[in-house]
């Protein structure tokens, strides 16, 4: 049990998927204008990440490995991810049209969110077990959501700040997230 908690902390804070592994930067920069949509995006990504981790584990261990189709891994994974994202999109469109509007293009783009594919591939690479994979993915997604939320809060402040014209928009967002990464550096080497 404690091992699982430590895994969650390690994946969410110490080896944060966004700030330490630099995966999934696209939605972090794109959907962090408001806290509400950031939380929505975080939850959608958490859902997709966890589900695909389970699906790709099964695919890897029950189909690709027995049949020796390792070379098809990326292709097969992408197909699975795309389907899960498609499903998520349908669900959000039905359940929360407002969130669907605010996520816009970034919702279908979860398909190409490198964090999703990256975590699935890392799971294979580190040959985790089924539940371990799921928790690894869930922890990473938590870290992603955490960064999304913190960064969205920061950007809401920045949006009203008198940022010099040369830095307003993307430049100041990048500077802010780099400083956030600096703060996360403090967790490096955390003995857990």
């Amino acid at each position: 049990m404690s091992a699982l908690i430590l895994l969650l902390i390690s994946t969410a804070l110490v080896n944060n998927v966004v700030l330490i592994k630099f995966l999934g930067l696209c939605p972090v920069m794109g959907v962090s204008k408001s806290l509400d949509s950031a939380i929505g995006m975080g939850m959608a990504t958490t859902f997709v990440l966890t589900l695909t981790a389970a699906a790709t584990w099964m695919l890897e261990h029950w189909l690709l490995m027995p049949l020796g189709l390792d070379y098809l891994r990326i292709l097969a994974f992408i197909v699975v991810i795309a389907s899960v994202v498609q499903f998520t999109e349908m669900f959000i469109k039905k359940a929360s049209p407002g969130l669907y509007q605010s996520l816009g293009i970034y919702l279908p783009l979860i398909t190409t969110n490198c964090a999703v594919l990256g975590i699935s591939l890392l799971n294979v690479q580190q040959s985790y077990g089924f539940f371990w994979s799921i928790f690894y993915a869930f922890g990473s997604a938590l870290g992603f959501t955490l960064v999304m939320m913190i960064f969205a809060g920061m950007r809401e402040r920045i949006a009203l700040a008198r940022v010099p014209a040369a830095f307003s928009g993307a430049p100041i967002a990048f500077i802010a997230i780099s400083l956030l990464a600096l703060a996360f550096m403090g967790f490096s080497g955390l003995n857990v």
Partner: protein
Amino acid sequence: MFTAIFSLTILGATLGLALGIAGRFLAVEANANVAELEALLPGTNCGQCGFPGCSGAATALVGGAAPATCCPVGGKALAVAIAEKLGVRLDLSGVADEAPKLALVAEDLCIGCCRCIKTCPTDAILGAPKQIHNVLKEACTGCAACVAHCPTEAILLHPVPVTLPHWVMPKPSSAVSVGNCVTSFAERTAWV
């Protein structure tokens, strides 16, 4: 070779089937945005947007053919409302938020031709043939439809005078100029 083709086909077919079923359960009928947008628009059908009447503009807005700022009569407030409804980002830089205007008949120029009366979408102009016309200021929307039809340029738009109950405290002219500069960075660095 055969296993690869077969397994991927099966995978694709399974996922496709699952998505198809999900799609049936999570179907959302196409949003009836046109009617909602038409309700937002002024409904004067003045044609200043370049589309055939307000319903035409609503269709164009939903189709993405018109920007949210297309209606000059509604001004900034309407553009914001439309953008919110459509969930699009708004560039207000092109919208001059002019003070409301009303049509006014210059009595020495009016020849009583009744042409303006026929064009007024809100029946705001009173008059009879060979009699000087008058604008009901309660009904005039300042859409300027009448201006072009006057053969003697007797009808023109004038800003509504500010009255005591309608006076608005001006926004403080922010004395803090840091970062408020509109000049480009290159221009500013020229000083160094």
